[in-house]
């Protein structure tokens, strides 16, 4: 058991519950500035973008050039499919399929 991990889990859990519960019971008592409220609405997309890019950067550091390019193509293809409002499963399938194709190409051209 790692005490630091448990502290983080409990603090994030408590904070998350506060975010969910406090506005439900106390919204009429406090007001959030409009700019902050707008910023909060973009925090989720920003967080997911930051995690996505960080994952790609980490992947690029630990794999070959072909695999790195394949990963970027996988995200772009998945993005193109997602923009057409396709299902989550189809988006993931398209992305993983693209990356799989890059790995096959790498294997075929390898000396």
């Amino acid at each position, binding site marked *: 058991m790692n005490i630091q991990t448990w502290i983080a889990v409990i603090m994030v859990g408590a904070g998350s519950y506060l975010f969910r519960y406090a506005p439900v019971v106390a919204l009429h008592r406090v007001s959030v500035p409009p700019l902050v409220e707008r910023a909060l609405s973009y925090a*989720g997309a920003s967080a997911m973008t930051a995690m996505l890019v960080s994952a790609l950067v980490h992947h690029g550091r630990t794999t070959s050039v072909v695999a790195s390019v394949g990963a970027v193509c996988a995200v772009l293809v998945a993005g193109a499919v997602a923009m057409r409002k396709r299902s989550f499963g189809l988006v993931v399938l398209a992305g993983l399929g693209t990356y799989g194709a890059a790995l096959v190409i790498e294997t075929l051209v390898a000396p």
Partner: protein
Amino acid sequence: MTATTHTTPRATGGFDRDHVRRGAAAMFPLVVSIAPLGLLVGAAVATHPDRPAAFASTWLVYGASAHLALLDLTATGAGTAVVVVTCLLIQARLVVYAASMSAHWRAESGRFKALMAATIVDPSFAIGDGRYREPGSAVEKRSFFVGATATLWVGWTLLIVVGAVAGARFAHVAVLQVALPVCLVPMVAPALAGRPGRAAVVTAATVAVIGRSWPSGLGLVAAIVAGAVAGAIVEEQAR
């Protein structure tokens, strides 16, 4: 002498089974669509150095992106403060969802609010808020929300369990190395539809690249804050 108090009238109690079922049926396709993400989180739980804490986050954090960030940062030894700030920034959107739900739950009991608030997350908000804005009685709407949110809660837990059991066996499969970024794409894509969202995404991506070598995940925190502020500013300018 009698004291006069002004309180919001309590909603009529009880549930309508038919509308509980309708809520469950409405949520089920969403649970299926997020199955890859649930399995991915489950696999990350299975490979985490502290599996009980990683699994407990399923309910305590109850949000895929914050859960993934928590697993990633704690597994790589990031400082507790960075883990907490990063995850809470990711969860900050819940304030907006809860604020919207507060209008629908004004007449509900304190116990209902305390319990149902814990289940507020993107899919339950999307389906629940939509139903509350449609015609119908308070009992029907409450029943629908409870059916939908309970289905999500149970479904998400099952996906994580299955991912934890099966995912660890497939962790070495090469194609799954990009499962995380690919699974995040459908969650980012809707933001690209408007200019403020695009500004948020581009700014967050740029700062994430710039801060890729910053210590303890600070680059991630900076990217989230910069993206959120950029989105808000562009929206403000568009008004």
